């Protein structure tokens, strides 16, 4: 029984990390249909931002305050990645809408440049971010220990999801955003500035990638190429979940995360990964548009 609970917790923990890195992509790729290969580097930017904030706290703040750096690092990571995303959109992506292959190559190039930038600024070796003391240890239930860091990431994902839901489905700018993504021409005819909506939407997706990067500092060292480890998983989650729907991304992350943990438990780490990939391939043969497909009476979608 304990083993099952522990595996389930691990599965949910892996899912929460997958979900966090895929949330930003569910906006830029899911809603905007931009294949942004630099998404991983936006995660990397968020991670290094957390590193910089940590160093600033260590140098300029009293030691007793050090533990709170992480609470500051999350919004700062969002803002820094948001700004990078905004610049990327205005300088490059906006010329490439509707040209997926071009945007794939161009953003990949941008990703390489950002990686090199990180190497030049921070050096090639991985750097460690010291987790705040209040996240050390774990919650003990019976014989099981649930690490606070993992619980914190799960909580962070839930908060991000909730805020994103409010923004996309319950706010004025979110309504504008959905209108533009569904029918650009008609949205423009209603007086919506599609240029501004595009730029802000892309920047928000980038900002969420920054938060993901900040969270990743809790589970391991960070390096210039950290994003490349996660980019494939992130795309997989969004495609499996169904492009364009927030709830689909949640199911995609849970599906991959839990099956990954279970398969690895039953077999070995590498065989488990293979089985997960096989399951995804089989599933997409059966349902090519993912878990949650958009359906409507109108002919165009």
């Amino acid at each position: 029984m304990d083993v099952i609970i522990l595996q389930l917790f691990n599965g949910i923990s892996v899912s929460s990390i997958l979900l966090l890195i895929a949330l930003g992509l569910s906006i830029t790729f899911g809603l905007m249909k931009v294949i942004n290969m630099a998404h991983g580097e936006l995660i990397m930017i968020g991670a290094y931002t957390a590193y910089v904030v940590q160093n600033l706290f260590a140098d300029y703040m009293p030691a007793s305050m050090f533990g709170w750096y992480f609470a500051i690092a999350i919004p700062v990571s969002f803002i820094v990645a948001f700004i990078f995303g905004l610049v990327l959109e205005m300088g490059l992506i906006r010329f490439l809408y509707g040209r997926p292959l071009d945007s794939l190559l161009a953003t990949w190039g941008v990703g390489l440049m950002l990686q090199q930038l990180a190497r030049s600024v921070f050096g090639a070796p991985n750097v460690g971010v010291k987790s705040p003391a209040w996240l050390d240890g774990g919650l003990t239930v019976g014989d099981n220990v649930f690490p606070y860091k993992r619980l914190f990431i799960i909580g962070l994902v839930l908060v991000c999801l909730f805020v994103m839901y409010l923004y996309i489905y319950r706010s004025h700018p979110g309504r504008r955003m959905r209108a533009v993504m569904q029918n650009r021409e008609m949205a423009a005819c209603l007086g919506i500035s599609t240029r501004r909506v595009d730029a802000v939407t892309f920047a928000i997706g980038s900002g969420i990638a920054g938060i993901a990067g900040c969270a990743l500092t809790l589970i391991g060292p960070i390096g210039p190429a950290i994003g490349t480890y996660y980019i494939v998983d992130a795309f997989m989650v969004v495609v499996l979940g169904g492009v364009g729907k927030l709830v689909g991304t949640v199911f995609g992350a849970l599906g991959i995360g839990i099956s990954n943990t279970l398969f690895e438990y039953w077999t070995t780490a590498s065989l488990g990964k293979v089985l997960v990939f096989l399951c995804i391939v089989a599933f997409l043969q059966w349902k090519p548009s993912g878990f949650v497909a958009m359906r409507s009476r109108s002919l165009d979608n």
Partner: protein
Amino acid sequence: MLAVQQLEAGYGESVILRGVTLQVRPGQVVCLLGRNGVGKTTLMKSIMGVIKARKGTVAYKGSDLTKRAPGQRAKKGIGYVPQGREVFAQLTVFENVLLGLEASTAKRKTIPESAIAKFPVLQAMYGRRGGDLSGGQQQQLAFARALASEPDLLLLDEPCEGIQPSIVDDIRDVIRSIKADGKTAILLVEQSLEFVKSVGDYFYILEKGAVAWEGSLGDLNDEVIRHYLTV
């Protein structure tokens, strides 16, 4: 109020409009007639700014709109009900109507009574997705969305296309009531001669991308119809 001068426009290499000149006065219902493929919808799109003009001008309330984006034209007070309705399928009916407020100059946050009162059926379906509505209901939704910004000029592109007769009558009533209010002018593209005769003040007939005939209701006799409109 709306003055189109020698407008030329088209898609890619092909030129559709070859020098169209027309005018809409405040409160007037102007109908645009013509056989299929003469450029009626292209003209509507050029007035809205979806298609850029190659030559000529589009002026509205004295200011030149030729180079302006569609959104700026909407904010100047032009409402647009496009061919094919173009409601946002994934958004609810309520959200669709709220989006009409984007162009509202009054900065209002609530849907004006005048826009929605004409379509009682929509209020009952506020929570449903636009794409789940029937064609006729979607048409009424597109109407309400355009009226939400309280435009001075309404562009209607085939509002009765593929719609059951009872809703056609509803739409006729709506156009008549807008006309009776006298605040909003209408430029109407419609195939049904009977329909346009029942609401129109002034008529333009397009042929080969240019205005071939214009006149008021009394001038629109059988001779004109046979010459320009029968196939």
